[in-house]
Structures are given as structure tokens and as C-alpha cells.
């Protein structure tokens, strides 16, 4: 059993957060996976800052690698958070991917808002999801709800 002791209300809230974020990642990944014409090229080419880096990622040879990695990370993070397995690692990787999304089109005053609904000043939904993953990382719940729950049982017994 992990060290964390949450009240049941806290545990339910944290598990719900983990499942919702996992759901969102997985669905985004699957939709892209099953759509062969999808590419991140346009999003990267229209980056409002760090254009050389994003431009390089969108360049001919890199573009397809970036697309595969993008889909891979979305699916892996989604699966991990939903199943409750290695969620700490998944959170870190997910935060990294979202940080790239954010940096390509940051909601900084003076920059074009880019393709998004709603109105944002510095904080946008990518940034909020990064924070959500941060919470998921530092308040693990897979020991209580997820594959790690079974595995920890197995370890206890084996020992």
C-alpha cells in the first residue's frame, strides 16, 4: 500500500481527474490514429513563437516522425492513465507533449490566438491540462484504482 492516505472524497476526485484526462488523451490519439490524412504540420508551421524549432519539426523528413510520436504519446498516456499503470511516467510525458502544444501557440498577449475556441490570456486549456497532469503525478491513485492495485497485491503476497 502506498503512503498516501486520502479521504474517500479526495480519492474519488483524484481518480475521476485521472480517468478524464486519460480519456481525453486516448480519444485524441485514436481519432488521429484512424485518420491517415491527419498531420500536425499545419499546427507546427503556424507556430507563433520558436518558429525555427517548430518549423524543423514540420519539415519533410521530420513531419511523419513527429506525427507518429504525437499519436503514440497520446495513446500511451491515455491508456496508462485509464488503466492505472505507470501513471507518474505517463503524467510527465503527457505534460511534455502538452507543453509543446502550448509553446507552439501560447496564449500570450500580443500573439495571435490560433485555432481555439474561447478567450484566453496566458492561461489556456493546454496549460490547465498540464496542471491537471501535475496533480495526477504528485497524487498517485493507481494503487487504489488501477492495474497497480493488483500488482501491488501480488508483490505483497509474493514477499
Amino acid at each position, binding site marked *: 500500500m502506498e503512503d498516501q492516505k486520502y479521504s474517500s472524497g479526495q480519492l474519488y476526485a483524484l481518480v475521476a481527474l485521472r480517468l478524464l484526462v486519460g480519456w481525453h488523451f486516448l480519444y485524441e490519439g485514436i481519432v488521429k490514429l484512424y485518420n491517415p490524412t491527419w498531420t500536425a*504540420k499545419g499546427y507546427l508551421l503556424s507556430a507563433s513563437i520558436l518558429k*525555427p524549432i517548430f518549423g524543423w519539426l514540420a519539415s*519533410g523528413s521530420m513531419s511523419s516522425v513527429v506525427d507518429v510520436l504525437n499519436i503514440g504519446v497520446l495513446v500511451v498516456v491515455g491508456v496508462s492513465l485509464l488503466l492505472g499503470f505507470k501513471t507518474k511516467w505517463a503524467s510527465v510525458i503527457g505534460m511534455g507533449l502538452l507543453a509543446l502544444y502550448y509553446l507552439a501557440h501560447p496564449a500570450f498577449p500580443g500573439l495571435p490566438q490560433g485555432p481555439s475556441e474561447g478567450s484566453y490570456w496566458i492561461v489556456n486549456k493546454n496549460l490547465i491540462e498540464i496542471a491537471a497532469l501535475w496533480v495526477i503525478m504528485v497524487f498517485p491513485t493507481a494503487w487504489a484504482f488501477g492495474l497497480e492495485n493488483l500488482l501491488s497485491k501480488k508483490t505483497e503476497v509474493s514477499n
Partner: protein
Amino acid sequence: MTNDNDNFMKWSRRDMLRGLAGIPILGSVWFAGARVTGNAKRERQLLLETLNIKASPPPPTGPMSGDPVRIGIVGFGIRGEQLCRALGYATTDWLKDMKESSEKNPNDSRLRDFLAQENLNIKINAVCDIFDYRAQRVVDSFTSDDNKVQRFLTYKELIHSKRVDAIVIATPDHWHAPIALEAIAAGVHVYIEKPMTHNVTETYTLREALQANPKVVFQLGHQHRQTQSFLTAQDIIAKKVLGHVSLITTNTNRNDDNGAWQYDIHPDASPKTIDWNQFIGNAPMEEFNLEHFFRWRKWWAYGSGLSGDLLSHDYDRLNCVLKMGIPDSVMTSGGIYTHRDGRNVPDVLQVNMEYQDFSTGTSQPEGKEKGMTFVYSATLGNQFDRPTYLMGHDGTMELGNAVTVYADARSSKYADLIKEKRIDPSEPIYVYDPSVNQTDAVTSATAKYFANKGLLYTYRDGKRVDPTFLHMREWLSCIRNGGTPSCGIKEGFEEAISSHMAGLSYKRGRRIQWDREAGKIIALPGEDLDAILTDTKPKV
């Protein structure tokens, strides 16, 4: 010691629930995503199959092997310099400026793109420019150990020097035809800037000269014919996706000095450094003045205003897609409303070209639809972007670097699909985006956003390419390997006559008609069309 089976037995039902409850969620999300995308894909596929539009690039033009083609440049102003770069020759000062610019801004890819351009195996070894400074720039920049550039004081000397196989003409409009005619008679290949001619008679003379010298390869500088999206647009028309197109609207919107031909005057320019008599040529003699020399596009005596300068581009863009040819009649109006600086060409112009019998096909009963109006609307006092639209009974095409097609809500062809809600008239049914090498039947707001950002250019094999380079390459390939350039004399004749009809209508304030059988613009008794067209007096 316990084995795995024992471990399994230790898990309670509650443990199993807590451990594995994520799996059904995972399965549901995966299934939902795959199903939604699969359905959308199937719908898209069905639509694309129905539309059957091919966006494949044209076969590449032939090899550039063999001896280098020797080229002379006549006129090394703004456009002449650009054309030389498309041929692989940049001036020393341009290279220096671009190097500095790309060091300051790594996104500036102009130098990179230029250096990556294919070597066309040519030599620019002769120049004729009547302004000493410009001619000297060519000599200084393009001369190398194996290429000595010679300056000629007249175009005739250059053409007859035996140093050139081909020439590029980038002079003021009133010099286009005389120089081209001299070259054609001498068997020298010609790449000529638009508009092809400055008056009506020259247009016929040039056509006759090329008919008499069929070995001369002639290309008119409408480089957009190489743009991938226009080739796709041709296929959209051929597949009758739009139904009967009754109206085309195309526009020019510019709002800056450069766009209004108010070019810089070079400090070295003087009667000593410019051959003024040669500049005047067949235009009425004027006192030496720098305004006319550098800003010649503002006067009918040397240029052709919006109708020759910019309508010609838009006309040819559409003529390349529709092959509609010369209109039955043209009505033009306009005036000088935002640049009252002494110019006599209009800066606001509206041209309506009528095509009584033209049709792009119909989905309605035979005989119901026929005829089309081509509207060109231009201002040099506003730069709001107005796209080009081809408006048909079944659909609308927005034509630019990207091609977007919408079904019309009252279309006959798509009526069933619209009723079944498989087509939404407010969403594109087809988008061609040349930068990502993909076709997509249903686009998103995001894709629209990228298209509007102008990120979409002409690409070949995923590489960004300058259409002018492709256009000149095609010309050189025809010189080397045979073939017909995409903008030859037939296309040039149609471009020039249509532009001149627009100019004449503006000048006369009446409808100008084309006699299709006689192949002539109809003149009223006593009218000298050439004199009217190049008349330098302000419009009455």
C-alpha cells in the same frame, strides 16, 4: 514460496474491480474514436469518389542536359532581376542583403530557397538595359571565369550578336512586341513578360511572326499556370463538380505605393546614364523625366494600367482553368480615385466580360443554362483580401493557393446528399491543400484558419517551389526537348486581346465587342483602336 496461481487466488472481487475497471472505459473510448473516425472517413471517401477530383502534380518537364542555353536579358528592372533569379542568377548585392536578412531572421528562407533551386544549365551572357547602372549590375554580378557577360546598347545588337539562343524580355509594355518580333525573325527563343503586347495590331503581328517561325519557342510570363492548385481546379471543372458556372469574380486589392507602381527613383539616374530616346521608342516624345522612366506603368504611353498589368494575370488564371477564350463583349468603368499624382491609367477598375455561349456543363435540363460573366474588380486604394470565386449552380469554388469547393444549398446535383445531411452546404466538400499533399473532403475550422494564414504555396514533392522557376524551366525544356509551353502564342493572343478590350472600353466608355467569326475587335467607323488604347490624354 507461492506460485502465480496462488497470487491470483488472493485477489478479491473488489481488488479485481479496482484493478481492471479502467479496461472497459479504455475499450469504449477506443471503439468510439475508431468508429467516429471510420464513419467520417467512409463518408469522406464516398464523397471524394463521387467528386473524383485528381490533384496529382503534372509530369515534370524534360531534362536540362546538353550544352548550356545562352540567354540575353533585355530589361533588368524589378521584374528582370526576379526572372534572372528564377534562372539561377542573383546579383551580388541581393545575395549580400539576403545573407544579412537570414542571419537576422532564420525564418527568411529566400536565400535558402534560391540556393536549393535546380541548376537549369543556362548562361546569362548578354544584357541590354538602357540605364547604365542596371546594365553594369548584370555585368558585374553575372560575369564569372567561364561566363563573360557582354552589355549591348540596343536590343537589336544583342539579338544579332550570335551570343544568345534565347532572350528574356522584361521591358515596359510598349517595347514587348518590337523586341519579340526582332528576336523571332532572327530565330531566337523568347520569354516575354505580360501583357504580351501594348496594342491590338502588335498582337496579330506577333502571332503571324510565330506562325512563320514555328521553331521559336515562345512563353508568356503567366507563371501561375505552374501552380498546383490551378491544375486541380482544371480537374474540378472537367469533372463538372460546380455545374454550370454563370459568374466568376476575381479581384485586385492593393494599398501601397509599390503596388500602385510608385517605384523608387535611383539616384544615379540622369540623361547621361539613361538612353532616353530608346526608352521612348514608339511612344510620343516627352522631355526627359525620371517619373516616366521609373514609374512607366502609370501612363498608357508605356504601360497598360490595371487592365494590362493585373487583369491580364487574373484573366489568364481563369483562362487556364476554363479555357473560355476571348469574351463576346467587355464593359469597363473606373477612374483615378486614390492616386491623383499625374498618372493617366485608372487606379480603380471594374471589368465585366460576357461569354454568351460558354458553359462548364449542366446538371439541369438541356438548354436551361448557358453563358457566363467574368467580373474583374480592382482597387489600388484598399488591400482587403477578396478571394476569387467561380460560382456554379451546383457549387462554388474559391481559388487561390488552396482550392476550396462548397456545394450549393439549391444544387440539383447534390440535392439528395444535402437532403440526407451527408453534405452540409456551409462546409467545404473538397479542400486541396498543396502544402501537406493530401485531399480532404471535410475540413475543420483549424484547416480553414491555416489556409487563411497563407501557409499554402506551390509545392512539388513536398518542396516549396517558385512558380516562375517552373514556368521558365518549362520554356527551357521545350527549347531543349521539344514540346509546347503552357502559355504560348494562343494563350498570349487571348490574354492580350481580352486585356485590350477592357482598356478600350474604359477609354471609350462603351461596350467593346469581339467578332468571333472575323476574329477581330469591332471598331466603329473612323475609330483607330491602337490610337485609342495608347492615347496618353486623361479619360474624358
